[in-house]
């Protein structure tokens, strides 16, 4: 089978000492970049590009790819320890990961994040290796109606994030949609909700809102109490610093869920790791026997999104390497890098440069193993961060938040936005508005509106296009079903009450 031959050939390339070295450098750098909020793989890769001119292309692409998927491993660290999302895809990890840390289970949370990332990352590479061409074709068949249905399904998951008040959750999600609309409308170039500020013309950065609403608000809430009673509990003993066998068993479905959803969503040019992790989290919550506990520190709630954002890298490489179509910011730079070295990703890339492709694939297997070995022992070390006295930790979190935001665009205006959203996040906490729906609305809002308008433009105004196409019809029906789940719950309760009264 030519796949085996290719893989064999690839390992021969990937196991060369020089390439192993570059792989290690890449994943190490990626992990560090991922840990730091704000700074992301696109900027790092762009800055390293000139240095790669004198390297051999195989080593160079192995290193850059290592940064790409390595960053996804590191992103969960600050999410779990500090409620500061390391990058946009790690936002979902904050939901249960930080709650686990507050309960003294930071170690298992970090550990399961690493393990899930390894499992799903490997599955993602497997997918890239085995089913890239048919997946690429499937991805091409996705058009605006399907994207709209996908986003709607994602947004419908808000009801699963609702907590106790559906009305407040819906309001939070809608405000998220509003924040997503700030900026210049793509289709008509109209400025919307910019309040006369030119900095708002390109919209409000997701990372700024997420760090404000999660991290800053959390610090403010913790500052309320005068006494330092909330020294975050760190359990003693190695046994409690890693996931237990029971934890691993609980996450069986999460591993599968994250791997598959991440890979599929990553393969869509209009997809992304944020959507992938939200969908995976939502699905996990929907099928889990302890779904009401999600949001309070359930380990599957960490495993699923972390897996999803890792297999997404494998998925995103599918359209890049088989069609030459970049899906996200990082893949766009990888494309630029490949072009710079004289390779042109496209349908002819794999047949014409098998050594490069298979070498890359093989190195991704190796890289994932390296990352697991690198990250797991670091878990106890990172968990010790929580041992710091709170008067050191909280200013640290504030500083990291500010540096993270500033590193995204270098603009003081973004810091002002951070302050504003921090205040908003705090008010939401005090008034019992859940913040996850706000983030969800923000993440999906722009894409959803674009997909809807594109669909209506394609169908010349006929809404029926959304249900005429099979895939989008199925996903929209699922979305409606999801929205009705709480209804079923209430109907059932009402019915039981009625029966009791007889």
């Amino acid at each position, binding site marked *: 089978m030519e796949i085996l031959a290719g893989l064999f050939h690839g390992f021969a390339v990937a196991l060369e000492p020089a390439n192993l070295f570059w792989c290690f450098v890449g994943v190490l750098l990626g992990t*560090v970049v991922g840990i*730091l909020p704000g*700074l992301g793989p696109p900027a790092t890769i762009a*800055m390293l590009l000139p240095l790669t001119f004198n390297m051999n292309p195989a080593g160079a692409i192995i290193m850059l790819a290592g940064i790409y998927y390595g960053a996804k491993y590191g992103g969960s660290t600050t999410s779990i320890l500090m409620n500061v999302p390391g990058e946009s895809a790690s936002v979902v990890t904050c939901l249960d990961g930080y709650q686990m840390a507050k309960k003294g289970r930071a170690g298992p949370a970090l550990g399961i994040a690493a393990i899930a990332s390894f499992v799903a990352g490997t599955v993602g590479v497997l997918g890239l290796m085995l089913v890239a061409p048919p997946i690429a074709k499937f991805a091409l068949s996705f058009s605006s109606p399907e994207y709209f249905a996908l986003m709607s399904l994602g947004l419908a998951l808000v009801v699963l994030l609702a*907590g*106790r*008040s*559906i*009305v*407040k959750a*819906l*309001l939070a999600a*809608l*405000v998220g*949609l*509003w924040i997503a*609309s700030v900026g210049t*409308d793509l*289709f*008509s170039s*109209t400025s*919307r*909700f910019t309040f006369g500020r030119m900095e708002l013309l390109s919209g409000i950065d997701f990372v700024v809102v997420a760090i404000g609403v999660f991290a*800053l608000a959390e*610090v*403010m*809430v913790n*500052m*309320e*109490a*005068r006494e330092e009673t909330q020294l975050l509990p760190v359990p003693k003993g190695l046994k409690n610093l890693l996931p237990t066998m029971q934890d691993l068993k609980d996450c069986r479905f999460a591993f599968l869920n994250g791997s598959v959803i991440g890979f599929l969503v990553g393969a869509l040019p209009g997809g992304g790791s944020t959507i992938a992790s939200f969908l995976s989290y939502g699905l996990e919550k929907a099928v889990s026997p302890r779904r009401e506990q999600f949001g309070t520190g359930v380990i599957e709630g960490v495993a699923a999104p972390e897996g999803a954002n890792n297999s997404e890298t494998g998925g995103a490489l599918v359209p890049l390497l088989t069609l030459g179509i970049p899906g996200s910011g990082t893949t766009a730079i990888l494309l630029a890098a490949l072009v710079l070295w004289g390779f042109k990703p496209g349908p002819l890339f794999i047949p014409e440069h098998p050594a490069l492709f298979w070498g890359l694939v093989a190195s991704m297997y190796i890289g994932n193993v390296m990352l697991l070995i690198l990250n797991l022992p670091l878990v106890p070390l990172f968990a010790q961060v929580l041992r710091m006295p*709170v*008067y*050191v930790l909280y*200013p*640290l979190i*504030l*500083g990291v938040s*500010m*540096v993270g935001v*500033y*590193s995204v665009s270098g603009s*003081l205006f973004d*810091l002002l936005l951070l*302050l504003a959203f*921090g*205040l908003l996040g*705090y*008010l939401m906490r*005090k*008034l*019992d*508005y859940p913040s996850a729906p706000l983030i969800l609305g923000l993440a999906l809002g722009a894409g959803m*509106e674009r997909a*809807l*308008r*594109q669909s*209506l*433009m394609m169908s010349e*105004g006929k809404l029926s296009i959304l249900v005429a196409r099979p895939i989008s019809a199925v996903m929209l029906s699922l979305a409606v079903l999801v929205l009705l789940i709480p209804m079923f719950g209430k109907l059932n309760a009402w019915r039981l009450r009625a029966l009791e009264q007889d």
Partner: protein
Amino acid sequence: MEDGTRKSGDLWSGVALAALGLYIIIQAGQWEYLGPEGPGAGFFPLWYGVAILALSVLLVVSHLKRGSARGDATDWNKLGRALSTWLALAVSVALFKPLGFVISFALLTYCIVAVMYRRPLATAALTAVASAAGFYLVFDRALGVPLPVGVLGF
């Protein structure tokens, strides 16, 4: 609807959100709703604006119906501490332009440790200097991540 989260704040947040909804609707009215080529810039905002208005009215109404007898009294002390922290942060951001990140952050840390947590001044100063130096060394020197610079050049 059975909601376990009624607070007196519901009334005010509901009113504020209703005002937001109204504002969004009015703004959306100034943009094109449906153009010759498809939905315009006002299409989506109008719909979520209406939804925000409707839901917030629902919130206010359901709050008024059940009365605000329940709910914790606002602990103004706690609120005060949290908001003072926010204020300290805002001041430190305002100081970035003249003083740069390192100094402003050191001041912020000092305030938090000394004032909020009432640690001895020496501890506060030490923490402040150590943290700020740490940030400078790790971010500016080691990683090359730009930190806001003031007139003093760092």
